[in-house]
């Protein structure tokens, strides 16, 4: 219980202290294909407010969709029960950061690079292509283990000079 309080506090601290003029939109969805559309719609709402052009908004949405698809693949491979994805959009004047964090408990904590049985190689193909697409579509991509298991993909798109 106290542990959980600590976590909540530290989260609030981070959001308040580090970003003054920033707004955060957080969405948690079941890690299933049906809800990826909900994530894409949320990003549409967030990104189109920021002066991005239509193709830029679509690029961000596509990248977020790929990050979700990869999380869904991983949850399937790891046979996680009732997996969730949290999509956190951080709106700043200079950039939009979208963190796609899956809570697919990943014992190795090694992100997507783990031993892969032969049957999963084809899915690795689509995950690799998804990761490649993300690199092409947004300005920065980083992948790291999420706290408490899972993977966090951070996508950054810089705002246009106004």
């Amino acid at each position, binding site marked *: 219980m106290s542990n959980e309080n600590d976590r909540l506090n530290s989260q609030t601290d981070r959001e308040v202290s580090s970003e003054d003029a920033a707004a955060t939109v957080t969405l948690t969805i079941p890690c299933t294909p049906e809800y990826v559309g909900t994530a894409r719609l949320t990003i549409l709402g967030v990104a189109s407010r920021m002066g991005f052009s239509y193709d830029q908004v*679509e690029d961000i949405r596509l990248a977020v969709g790929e990050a979700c698809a990869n999380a869904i693949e991983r949850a399937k491979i790891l046979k996680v029960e009732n997996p969730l994805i949290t999509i956190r959009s951080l709106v700043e004047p200079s950039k939009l950061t979208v963190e796609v964090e899956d809570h697919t408990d990943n014992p190795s904590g090694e992100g997507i690079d783990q031993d892969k049985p032969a049957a999963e190689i084809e899915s690795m193909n*689509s995950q690799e292509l998804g990761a*490649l697409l993300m690199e*092409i579509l947004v300005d920065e991509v980083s992948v790291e283990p999420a706290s408490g298991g899972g993977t966090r993909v951070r996508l950054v798109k810089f705002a246009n000079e106004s």
Partner: protein
Amino acid sequence: MSSANFVPDDSEAERLFREYARARDEQVREQLIAMHQNLVRFLAGKFANRGEPLEDLVQVGAIGLVNAVDRYDAERGNKFSTYATPTIVGEIRRYFRDKAWSLKVPRRLQELNQAANKAVDALAVKLGRSPTVAEIAKAIGATEEETLEAIELGNAYDTVSLDSRMSLESDSAPMTLAEFVGGEDEALKSLQQYGDLSAAIEALEEREKAIIQLRFFKDLSQAEVAKNLNISQMHVSRLQHRALASLKKLLLEQK
């Protein structure tokens, strides 16, 4: 499409790439292009919801594939699909850029928005209740996500009458949109004055006109003008000064 077959068997592709690198055989090239068509389809499919026909995207993507096949160097150790994806996606994105589709998408959204609005009314009458998003989507032949987007964003692009009422505060007198529309740009007016300028120059006396023409249209120096007109440079300077002053006066009078 299942994810199973959009990247062909690596070892077979590798063998063919090695052969192509050695002999540059046209048939091997064709074979390599053909066996990676599914990669193009897969990637083009990702962009299919942006209002361009999938087949068009596959075709421009194929240009990227051909370029990638020609430039790929298997010796560098990259997988071909990894190498080709940025090239293929690059072609597809350039296609959108060149089509100025940022203008087209609002139009498409606006059309979808109008269709959705119509469908809402028609379905409400038919069903005797407010229709669901799924029912609207089906009626206008779009996905549910597209329908929601169109309803949400299409309104922003609706054309609006100049006489439509706007009120900033609910209790203030209603104003029309026309009252909010800005005035004429002063800088644009000065463009017209350039037209007036030639008339004003015509109105100058002969020698002043000649000086203005030689100085500002032929870019001669005052000394050169002086030589040309066989007068002193001092005189040119004085006449030029007078000419500019009267031009200014003439232009201001016209205003």
